[in-house]
């Protein structure tokens, strides 16, 4: 019995406080009036109009289109699910023991569904500049994801080049909710070229929405339980397949690719499914030199919303099925409704070195962060 006790008390015993914790996905709340100061005319006027409209959670008329429908029962969480300033974010993350965090937007999660491409570009560009000045420069432990407007990949590439070399930004964010065409399409080549040139990985992140584009025709469901269960993973599956079928990882071998907010349990399924198809249909994707799973195993995955099986050890097995311990990054999604407390992921039965990698090491490598 004695050796077991010794092992538990060895210096290997990390705590959440002692670890370097990187949170790969937290959300900030946009201030349309603040963004207006960075928007070219006439879009500054539109943003100032938007600032006058009362908003709801992830729902701001004019800026975040999503055909949401919910029966208004009382109850649900009464927590404030928005963060409005860098200092508020820092203090929330202090409570979570998070050392560094990568910021993603709230309303602009829906950017790909904005209809007017000129407005979409103005939103992306003004957000990026506003983000840098009001959040990233104010609190250096917060890092930025540079949002693109998929409606105009050329203008988006220009914006990536504009910010290339600013150490405040650590990735390019590809809004995936309602995006059409999917991200493997050749129209996005300027974005991948600019991101690769700037040395920035790209990160796909979706949001629940009902929208007439695959896979968001979620009006077939009656409840948000059903819609939310599939909105994120289906979107990530669709874009993962799309990137693979057009060979993005082959054409941009140095481009880091990350996936957020879809959990991880679907990843082993997708790898096996694609490998199986590949045996029969390789000739359609002759640029792939290896089985699809070999490419995808180089991608990085945010853990949130981490699965909560009855047997917590099952999560470790799921990670093993896609080499997840080397590529997964703890993500809380703070302060959103389904955020994960780092204590839960920290407490999963990983080996000490895998735990350190998942809680911070992998993200530090992917985003090139200094400890």
């Amino acid at each position, binding site marked *: 019995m004695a050796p077991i006790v010794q092992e538990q008390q060895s210096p290997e015993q990390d705590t959440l406080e002692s670890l370097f914790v990187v949170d790969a996905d937290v959300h900030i709340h946009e201030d349309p009036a603040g963004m207006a100061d960075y928007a070219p005319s006439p879009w500054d006027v539109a943003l100032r109009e938007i600032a006058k409209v009362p908003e709801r959670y992830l729902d701001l008329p004019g800026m975040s289109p999503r055909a949401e429908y919910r029966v208004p*029962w*009382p*109850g*649900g*969480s*009464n*927590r404030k699910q928005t963060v409005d300033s860098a200092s508020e974010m820092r203090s929330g993350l202090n409570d979570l023991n998070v050392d560094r965090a990568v910021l993603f937007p709230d309303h602009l999660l829906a950017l790909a569904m904005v209809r007017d491409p000129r407005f979409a570009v103005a939103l992306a560009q003004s957000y990026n500049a506003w983000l840098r000045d009001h959040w990233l420069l104010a609190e250096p432990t917060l890092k930025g994801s540079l949002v693109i407007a998929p409606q105009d990949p050329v203008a988006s590439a220009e914006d990536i080049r504009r910010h290339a070399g600013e150490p405040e930004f650590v990735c390019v964010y590809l809004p995936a909710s309602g995006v059409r065409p999917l991200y493997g399409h050749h129209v996005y080549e300027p974005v991948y070229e600019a991101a690769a040139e700037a040395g920035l990985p790209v990160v796909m992140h979706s949001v629940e929405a009902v929208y007439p584009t695959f896979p968001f025709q979620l009006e077939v469901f009656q409840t948000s339980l059903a819609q939310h269960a599939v909105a994120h993973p289906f979107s990530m599956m669709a874009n993962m397949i799309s990137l693979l079928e057009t060979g993005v990882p082959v054409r941009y071998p140095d481009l880091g690719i990350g996936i957020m907010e879809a959990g991880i349990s679907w990843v082993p399924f997708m790898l096996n499914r694609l490998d199986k198809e590949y045996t029969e249909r390789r000739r359609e994707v002759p640029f792939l030199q290896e089985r699809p799973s070999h490419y995808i195993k180089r991608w990085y995955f945010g853990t949130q919303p981490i699965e909560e099986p009855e047997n917590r050890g099952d999560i470790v097995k799921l990670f093993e099925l896609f080499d997840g311990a080397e590529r997964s990054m703890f993500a809380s999604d703070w302060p959103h*409704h*389904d*955020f*994960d*407390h780092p*204590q*839960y992921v920290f407490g999963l039965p990983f080996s000490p070195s895998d735990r350190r990698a998942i809680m911070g090491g992998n993200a530090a490598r992917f985003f090139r962060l200094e400890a």
Partner: protein
Amino acid sequence: MPREYVVARTSEIPEGSHRIVRVGRREIGVFNMGGVWHAIPNLCPHQRGPLCEGAISGTLGYGPDTDWKLDWVHEGEIVTCPWHALEWHVPSGRCLAFPDMRLRKFPTRVDGAEVRVIL
């Protein structure tokens, strides 16, 4: 030995309201539900969220108690965790989503104008 702690005056927690009190290192939610008092830990068994900071409401039920029809039930008896919105039935300590999860319930006693929790 269990001890009684005075945690509030009855007038401070009117019917239909609740408040979080501190006893030693413990935070306890004290609820006045129609004149019946309940005390539960301010700690959600899910991911240790501050459960009693949640709102009180009823909820949707469907089963033998509602004659197998969708109905609004337990009005004023459900506290919803502010972190991930798990619903808890305060009088029984039951978690509605996961019946195997239960809250510890501390006995209470009203003595004159004082609400006491027994730990």
